[in-house]
C-alpha cells in the first residue's frame, strides 16, 4: 500500500513530464497503459492496506482485549457465512464487469471539449447561493437553460 502510495504520484509526474517534453503531442502507448493501470492500482492499494490491518491484527479482534475466536457469533453457521461470501463475490464480480464496460466506453469516447465560458453566472460557492436566496431573488437565476441539458 505504501509503495503504491509513492508510485501513483510518480506515474503522474513522469506522465506529465513526457507530455510536456513531447510538446503536448501524442503520448507513447505503453505510458498510456501505465496510466490506465492506475485506476486499478489505487483500488489494490486500498484493499492491501485493509488486508494488512486485518491479517496483522490476528489472533486479536480488538488488540490484546478480544480474541477473534471469542468474538464469533454463536448462532451463525459456516454455511450462512459461506453463502453470503459467495453472494457478495458474485455481486462484486458483476459490478466489476459493468465498471470495466463503462470505463472502456468512457476512454474511447475521450474527454469532453473544453466548455465555452458560461454567460449565465452560475454561482460556485455555497455562500453565493445562500446570499442570493436570502436576498429573495427568484431561483430561476440560478438554473441552467434547458438547452444545456444532455444525456
Amino acid at each position, binding site marked *: 500500500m505504501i509503495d503504491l502510495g509513492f508510485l501513483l504520484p510518480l506515474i503522474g509526474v513522469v506522465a506529465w513530464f513526457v507530455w510536456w517534453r513531447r510538446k503536448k503531442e501524442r503520448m507513447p502507448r505503453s505510458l498510456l497503459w501505465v496510466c490506465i493501470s492506475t485506476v486499478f492500482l489505487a483500488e489494490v492499494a486500498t484493499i492491501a492496506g485493509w488486508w494488512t490491518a486485518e491479517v496483522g491484527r490476528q489472533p486479536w479482534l480488538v488488540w490484546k482485549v478480544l480474541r477473534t475466536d471469542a468474538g464469533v457469533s*454463536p*448462532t451463525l453457521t459456516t454455511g450462512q457465512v459461506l453463502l453470503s461470501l459467495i453472494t457478495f463475490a458474485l455481486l462484486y464480480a458483476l459490478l466489476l464487469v459493468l465498471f470495466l464496460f463503462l470505463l472502456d*466506453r468512457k476512454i474511447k469516447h475521450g474527454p469532453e471539449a473544453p466548455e465555452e465560458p458560461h454567460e449565465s453566472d452560475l454561482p460556485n460557492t455555497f455562500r453565493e447561493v445562500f446570499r442570493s436566496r436570502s436576498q429573495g431573488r427568484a431561483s430561476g437565476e440560478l*438554473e441552467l437553460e434547458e438547452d444545456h*441539458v444532455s444525456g
Partner: protein
Amino acid sequence: MSLADFWFMLFVAVIAAYIVLDGFDLGVGMLHPFAAKEDRERRIVLNSIGPIWDGNEVWLVVGGGVLFAAFPVVYASMFSGFYWALMFVLIALILRTVAIEFRGKRESSRWRGLWDSVFSASSFGLALLLGVAFGNVVTGVPLDKNGEVQIDSLLDLLHPFVVFLGVTTVAMLLMHGAHYLVVKTEGDLQARVRRWIPRFIGLFTITAAISAVWIAVGDFGLTDTFTDDVWTIVFPLGALVAYALMIVMVRRGRDFAAFFSSSAVIAFSLATISAGLYPNMLKSSTNPAFSMTVSNASAEHYTLTVMLVVAIIGIPFVLLYTAGVQYLFSGKVTLTPSSY
C-alpha cells in the same frame, strides 16, 4: 431519567430521522416507474432525490453506531440473529446506489430501463424490509437466556403481523414520497402524482388503522406504558394531529406543509411504538425474563458519558449540514449536465 434512557431516546430520534429522510427517497424510488412517463420525467424524479439520498442514508449508519456504542448487547444479538435479513438490506442498498449512479451513463433505453427496474425494486424491497424489522421489534424474537436469537430459518421472523407492518410501511412511504415529489416537480408530472395522493393517504389510513388495532388487541405488551405513564399519550395524539393537519394541507394545496405533516406522522408513530416498547429494546418471545431492556443492555456509564460529549458536538453538525443541503437544493428540480 438515567443516561441509558437518554440514549434510548436519542436512538429513537436518529431512527425517526432516518425513516423520515430516507423514507421519502425510498417512496420516490417506488413511484419512479409509475410517476414518470418518459426519460426526461424519469430524470426529474431521480434528480429530485439526487443530491440528498446518500446523506439521508447516513442516519442509518448513525443509528447503527449509536446502537453499537450505547447498547452493544442489542447490536450483537440483532446483527448475528438477523444475519440474512441484514444481508438482504445490504444487497438492496448496494443495488439501489449502483442503479442511481449507472442509469445515466448510457443513452440506450434498454440500459436505462434495466437500472430503473433495479432502482424501484430495491426501493420497494427496502421499504418492506424496514417494516418487517420494526414488526419483529414489536412482536419480539426468540431470544434465549444468552441473548442469542434462536431461529431455524428466516421464515420464523415472518409473523402475520410483521408482514402486515411491512405492507403498512410501504403504504406510508408511498404517501410520503408522493408528497415530496409534488413539492419537487411541476407540470404534468406533478399533476399526475397529486391525483394519487388521496389514494395513498387512503391506503395508509386503512393499513395503519389495522396495524394500530392489531397492536392494541394483539397482546404484544405495548399498551402498558400508556396506562402507567399517562403523559406518553402525547405521542399517539401527536401522530393523529399531524395526520389531520396533513389532510387539511393537502386540501388547501399547501404542498410543503403537507409533506412536513407527513414527516411528523412518521416521527410520532415511531415515537409511539418506542414508548410502548420501553423499557424493552428487544423482547424475547421465549421468556419475558430474557428480554433486553434499556437498563440491562446499555454500555457502562463511562462509555455513555464519553459518547454524550461526542454526540453533543457531532449531532448539531450533522443537523446543520443536513438542513443546509436541503435548503441549498430546495425548489423545483431542474436538469443540468451534471444531473444523474
